[in-house]
């Protein structure tokens, strides 16, 4: 197919696509206007029904809790899949399963290492804050979990390995991932046993605006936080390990 013909085909496709796009956009509500009944309902029900101030958290963890359960297990299975693939590869590469335990700094740049070391504390606190306040302000387990993962990534960048001596953080991460995933499911079953429906709230809602309000929503946030942090860290550690192993072999 000549270049010219290809351009013609592309032009016809692009024009058609543009026409469809314009047609679709023309039917939209005007900018800034929203008249979805469901959205309005959720926004108005959040505080009186669940005593939590973040309607997004209430929607994802309560009104649509089962959706979130599915999403959490998508991440869980994806992480497990990546782990299985990477570990099979490692076995095939005939390299010792134990990671390199040298005390050599991971990064050579002193600036990078000091900035990373200085950021670990604040990032850790921010992550915990985001997880714990998910039902009050924007944020929650997913966002906070990734921020917590970043704190551990910073420790790695600051010059210490994720694997050191007999303390096996990898095991802790795997446990964190599994416990987080199981915690969500078990909280749901708790609702089934104590309140009659899966993921239904079974503890006191508390006072609007306090840290312990919103029933099980903060607990769900914490378990999601652990799960997300564990899943990402396990994958990261696995990728970093492989890199370290490769580097060691080359010398």
């Amino acid at each position, binding site marked *: 197919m000549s270049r010219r013909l290809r351009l013609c085909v592309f032009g016809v496709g692009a024009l058609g696509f543009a026409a469809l796009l314009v047609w679709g956009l023309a039917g939209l509500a005007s900018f800034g206007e929203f008249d979805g009944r469901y959205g309005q309902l959720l926004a108005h029900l959040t505080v009186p029904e669940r005593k939590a101030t973040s309607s997004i958290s209430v929607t994802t963890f309560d009104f649509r809790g089962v959706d979130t359960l599915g999403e959490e297990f998508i991440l869980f299975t994806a992480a497990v899949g990546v782990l299985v693939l990477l570990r099979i590869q490692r076995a095939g590469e005939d390299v010792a399963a134990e990671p390199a335990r040298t005390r050599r700094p991971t990064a050579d740049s002193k600036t990078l290492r000091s900035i990373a070391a200085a950021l670990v504390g604040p990032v850790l606190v921010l992550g915990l804050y985001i997880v714990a306040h998910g039902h009050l302000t924007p*944020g*929650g387990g997913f*966002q906070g979990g990734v921020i917590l993962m*970043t704190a551990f990534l910073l420790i790695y960048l600051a010059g210490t390995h994720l694997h050191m001596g007999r303390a096996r953080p990898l095991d802790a991460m795997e446990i964190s991932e599994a416990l987080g995933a199981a915690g969500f499911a078990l909280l749901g079953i708790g609702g089934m046993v104590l309140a009659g429906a899966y993921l239904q709230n079974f503890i006191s809602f508390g006072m609007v605006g306090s840290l312990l309000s919103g029933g099980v929503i903060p607990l769900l946030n914490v378990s999601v936080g652990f799960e997300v942090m564990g899943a990402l860290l396990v994958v990261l550690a696995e990728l970093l390990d*492989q890199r370290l192993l*490769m580097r060691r*072999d080359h010398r």
Partner: protein
Amino acid sequence: MTAVQAVALIVVAFGGTAVVLARDPARQALVASVFGLSLAVLFLAFQAPDVALSQIVVGAVALPAMITLALRKVQRREEAQGDER
């Protein structure tokens, strides 16, 4: 539409194009990270702080980190295979 929203939209449009135009994958991961950050600003300007937070942590941190690590791994493997030949 406020000025902030308009500026954020324009920055995102340019950022997305920049990601496509960066051909080197490692460089592309970094550009994508900046693009993710500008998307987060856009979401914030449109009053979706929850989505903005997710966008910051996933688009600006987690995704580029995973891409660079995966790239590193692939490159190492290619080098190792090159040595064997």
